[in-house]
């Protein structure tokens, strides 16, 4: 028997807000909310842990499957390095996306920005400036594209979905124009060597270290700084944030800029990883990043974001892909299974959270 939603009530006096119930009504689910927030407050910390634990549980289940089906190939250092490396690029993008979603926005252009930054940074002209030239260009192009998104959304008043969709089209077009469809091979040794085992630090690939650094910094920003506080506030209740004196528009601008920055960093990492820049890079990153963030526990409607959850989400997806490949599953089966696993993971998670609640 499904239980009707205990109509969680909004504890406020009469809302005479002329702009109406806005998006909240749209988000009220017909089904019972898995996390009730009524009752004891201090449980919040615990609840977040429960969510993280449930994600870790899903991950553990995957590791178990991997270990059983392919004990030799799955459970070794090389594969761990591989999974983490594969997770790095999309992981960095997801950290930026988590901020944007937490603020109640969305960024569909991340994949296109990665593509644009990666091809711009690998043109012959840029490569002349060596390592610094490539790294700098990738980051700057990402930031610039993010800035355009931010201005359109924060000051142009465009819906994030449409503004970043337009950026998706334009950035991919520009990337294609720059490369003419050709793969731009990197010839700068210092960049190339960063992706090779020689430069692993204590067995950890530099790309993984970069991912870790972005994660830690992202976590600190979201949880320990005014910027993070404001991001949550804007996503939770933009009007309240405005009345509290937060410059909501500027905050939004910064957030899309941050997402662009992450894409720039990810583009550089992808250049290192693949030794090249190509306009098809970052294909469908937008869906992957959003999915990882949501699975991780960030609310698509804004107001709650978790970097740890997002990173776990990315790791879950990467591990799934890894296990599929190790087991030599073909594309069709992989896709069908992926859909089924997503559904199963979410439903299991819902159950866990509900269980933890009582």
């Amino acid at each position, binding site marked *: 028997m499904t*239980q*009707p*939603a*205990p*109509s969680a*009530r*909004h*504890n*406020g*006096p*009469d*809302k*005479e*807000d*002329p*702009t*109406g*119930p806005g998006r*909240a*009504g749209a988000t009220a689910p017909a089904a019972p909310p898995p996390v009730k*927030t*009524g*009752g*004891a*407050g*201090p449980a*919040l910390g615990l609840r977040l842990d429960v969510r993280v634990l449930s994600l870790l549980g899903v991950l553990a289940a995957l590791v178990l499957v991997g270990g059983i089906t392919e004990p030799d190939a799955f459970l070794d250092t090389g594969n761990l390095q591989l999974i983490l490396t594969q997770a790095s690029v999309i992981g960095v993008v997801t950290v930026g996306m988590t901020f944007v979603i937490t603020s109640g926005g969305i960024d569909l252009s991340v994949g296109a920005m990665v593509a644009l930054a990666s091809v711009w940074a690998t043109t012959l002209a840029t490569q002349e400036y060596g390592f610094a030239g490539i790294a700098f260009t990738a980051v700057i192009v990402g930031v610039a594209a993010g800035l355009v998104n931010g201005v359109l959304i924060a000051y142009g008043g465009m819906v994030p979905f449409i503004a970043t969709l337009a950026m998706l089209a334009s950035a991919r077009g520009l990337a294609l124009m720059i490369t003419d469809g050709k793969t731009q091979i990197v010839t700068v040794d210092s960049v190339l060597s960063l992706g090779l085992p020689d430069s692993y630090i204590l067995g950890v690939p530099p790309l993984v270290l970069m991912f870790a650094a972005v994660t830690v910094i992202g976590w600190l920003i979201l949880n*320990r*700084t*005014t*910027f*993070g*506080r*404001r991001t*949550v*506030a804007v*996503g*939770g*209740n933009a*009007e*309240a*944030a*405005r*009345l*509290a*004196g*937060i*410059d909501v528009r500027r905050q939004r601008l910064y957030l899309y800029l941050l997402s662009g920055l992450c894409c720039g960093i990810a583009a550089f990492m992808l250049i290192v990883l693949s030794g090249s820049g190509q306009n098809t890079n970052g294909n469908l990153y937008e869906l992957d990043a959003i999915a990882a963030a949501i699975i991780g526990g960030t609310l698509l409607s804004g*107001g*709650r974001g978790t970097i740890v959850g997002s990173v776990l989400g990315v790791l879950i997806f990467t591990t799934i892909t890894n296990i599929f490949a190790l087991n030599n599953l073909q594309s069709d089966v992989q896709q069908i299974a992926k859909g089924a696993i997503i559904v199963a993971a979410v439903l299991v998670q819902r159950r866990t959270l509900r269980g933890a609640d009582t």
Partner: protein
Amino acid sequence: MAPEPPLLTMSGITKSFPGVRALDGVDLEVQAGEVHCLLGQNGAGKSTLIKVLAGAHQPDGGEITWRGEAVRLKSPIAAMRRGIATIYQELDLVEGLSVAENVFLGHEPTSAGFIVRTGEGRSAAKALLARLGHPEIDPARPVGSLSAAQQQIVSMARALSHDVRLIVMDEPSAALDPDEVDNLFRIVDGLTADGVAVVYISHRLEEIRRIGDRVTVLKDGRAVAVGLPAAGTPTRDIVAMMTGRDVEYVFPPRPEETAATTAEPVLRVQGLSREGEFAPVDLELRPGEIVGLAGLVGSGRSEILETIYGARRATTGTVTVAGQQLRNGSVRAAVAAGIGLAPEERKAQALLMTESVTRNVSVSSLSRFARLGWIDRGGERRSAREATRELSLRPDNPDTLIRTLSGGNQQKAVLARWLLRGCRVLLLDEPTRGVDVGARAELYAVIRRLADDGLAVLLVSSEVPEVLGLADRVLVLREGQVVHTAPAQELDEHRVLDLVMEGSPTP
């Protein structure tokens, strides 16, 4: 008294929204250390005026003088910097953030300008909450898990977290219990003693008497009276200024001989309970009868109503309408059996804000106007109009967008929804919250008339006089338990408050 220069002067403030002239040349003058009350009907422009003062709206015209100096308040920050803090009518808290985070939102204590010092924020918030008489609120708790009253305290703590000279409070008492209101007034007294001025908005005129120094009355975006003495002006005059007519601020008479005493109960609730919310409740409602539920905020009254209605699933017990037992946890079963609910949160729980009055009224009876799903829009509009006319909803135009109506009229639209549906039992949760005096009197009359027409009404209200004045029978609730049942005539306010608070932990 030597005429000190006023702390604040607002003169000739105008402000228009698309299609509405919300403020039409309003003047306001506030002295340091006074409690200045702002009165007016729903939609008179009170909130708009104070949003202008808070820097949240930019006025179209007029001047603001602050401590003798003409100022422009370009943003909420600009107002806060000058020492003007505001507690908004719509709670302006971010539910996902903790109490401390909300209190210091926008001016967090930081290291290096951007790293939040969480510990410092928490202890400072704790101190503020203690000063407000609520040391029990944990600064680390997410605000979304607090009760409405507690959220109100957090808003207050936020206002006090600034170095203030003027605090604006927009209907702070709407969500508070009588003893909470007493506490609020103690805080206000403390503030004014320190020379802080308070602008106080409320629809409860008795509160104005208790703490107000002077009164400004707004009507249709104009100040019709400025700086009247709060003590000396008769209530009748104030109401007349607000509404432009004489309103009998009294409850409609109870019928001499109600069918209630004789008729079969239409609603029978037996042993209904919800774990953690309320203990088993027994309750019978007869046609024509108004039963009131009195209790403190958080005593579980809304939960009882929503459980009867099927919006929450009962742990034990049954609900029977006219002899037919309802399926547990099914709103549709309740509606089909003839129960209607006017929920506590009109905007969040009842209204389709982007829609017209007609559509809001007809939403529960759509199938009545439809053949094979095809809506007879003419019939729908006519019937909706009939229902709203019966309740004299204004404006009398069924195509008006519901969001443009005043609170009282929105409430009437919700009642009209159930009138149209033709229900037998009406559950009313805080039907007059945020509703002005004039509309309130009308609502009372409407509710009584519906009962006289044979409806059974179950009424929840935090205002004890309202329960006593309107209901025939009163159930007193404490911590989820019915502790007393009596005819309304046998109770008075003090007796109810004693019952309600007896044995409850001192706040």
